[in-house]
C-alpha cells in the first residue's frame, strides 16, 4: 500500500471494516491516465514518425476507386425528411400502444387492469385522435404525393 490507513476502522456487527478513503482509489486514476496516454502517444507518434507523400490521387475522395461525381455534401430533397418524420410519428405511436395494451389486457393485477382499461383507455384514444388529426393534416398538405 502506497498510502497508509489514516482513518480509524469502523466497527460493524461483523467486525472492523476499513474506513472509506479516496486516496485508496488512486490506481483507477493511474489506469485512466494510461488509457488516455497510450492512444494519444500512438496517434501523435505515428503522425510525426511516418513517411508521408501527399499526392493528388491520395487526397482525392475515396469512391471505391472511381471518379467522384458531385460533392460529398450533397443536398437531399426535404420530402425524404417528411417521410422520415411521419414514419417516426407512427413508430412512436406503436411504441406507446404496445406496453399499454399488454398491461391493460394481459399482465398486471386487477387494480392495474381496471385503471388501464378505463381511465388510460380514454387517454390513449385522445392520443390516437391527435395523431389522426396530424395524419389528416399531412395528407391535406400533400406529403404523401411524391413530387
Amino acid at each position, binding site marked *: 500500500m502506497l498510502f497508509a490507513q489514516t482513518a480509524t476502522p469502523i466497527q460493524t456487527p461483523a467486525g472492523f471494516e476499513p474506513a472509506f478513503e479516496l486516496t485508496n482509489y488512486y490506481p483507477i486514476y493511474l489506469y485512466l491516465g494510461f488509457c488516455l496516454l497510450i492512444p494519444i502517444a500512438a496517434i501523435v507518434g505515428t503522425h510525426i*514518425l*511516418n*513517411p*508521408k*507523400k501527399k*499526392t*493528388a*490521387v*491520395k487526397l*482525392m475522395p*475515396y469512391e*471505391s*476507386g*472511381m*471518379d*467522384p461525381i458531385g460533392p460529398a455534401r450533397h443536398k437531399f430533397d426535404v420530402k425524404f425528411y417528411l417521410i422520415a418524420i411521419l414514419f417516426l410519428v407512427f413508430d412512436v405511436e406503436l411504441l406507446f400502444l404496445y406496453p399499454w395494451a399488454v398491461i391493460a389486457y394481459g399482465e398486471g393485477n386487477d387494480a392495474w387492469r381496471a385503471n388501464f382499461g378505463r381511465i388510460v383507455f380514454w387517454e390513449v384514444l385522445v392520443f390516437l385522435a391527435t395523431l389522426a388529426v396530424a395524419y389528416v393534416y399531412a395528407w391535406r398538405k400533400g406529403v404523401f404525393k411524391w413530387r
Partner: protein
Amino acid sequence: MAMRPNENFLISKLDWLASIVRANSLWPMPFATACCGIELMATASSRYDLARFGAEVMRFSPRQCDLMIVAGRVVMKMVPVLQRIWLQMPEPKWCISMGACASSGGVFDAYATVQGIDRFIPVDAYVPGCPPRPEQLIQSIIDLQDRIKKTGTLMAKEFEQRTEPDRPKTIALQMAPTERVVAPGDFQTSTRAWEEKKT
C-alpha cells in the same frame, strides 16, 4: 571523436522498433474480386484466425490500410481502380497477390483479363493456389512479416531505390509476338485522370 557514439544508433533502433510494430499490426485492404475472396474471409474468421498474427483488421478504405490483398482475377476495367486504390494507401504499404489469377491470370488468358497484377503494381508476396488454402495465405503473411522485420525502415527508405516496375524480368520473353503489339487506345492516364483534371 573516438568516444562519439555512432550517430545512426538511435535511428537504427527506431527502424527496428517501427518494423516490429508495423509487421505485427498489418491492416489488410481486401481487394477481393473473385472466389479467392471467400478463402480470404475464411482466413479472417475464427477457424483459421488471422488475428493471431495481428492482421485481422480488414478495413474497406485504403486510408487505414497498409497491406493490400488482391484476391481474384483483375480485368482491364479494374486495373485503374486497383492502381488508384494502391496509390491511395498510406506509406509504408505492401501487397500480396493471392491466387493464380491475381499472380498470373490463371486460366483466364483472354482479351480482357490482366495476366498478373505485378505488371502494373508492385507485389511483395505471391500465394499460389486456385484458390489457396487459408494456411497458405497465413504463411505468406508470416513471410511478409519476416521481411518487414528484416528490411523495414522508419521512413520507408527501403522502397526509394526501386524506381523500376517490380514485374518479372522475363515478361518480354513470355509475351507472344502478337501480344507485344500494343493496340491503339489511351489507357495511360486512366489511373491519374483525376489528378490531371485537378492541376
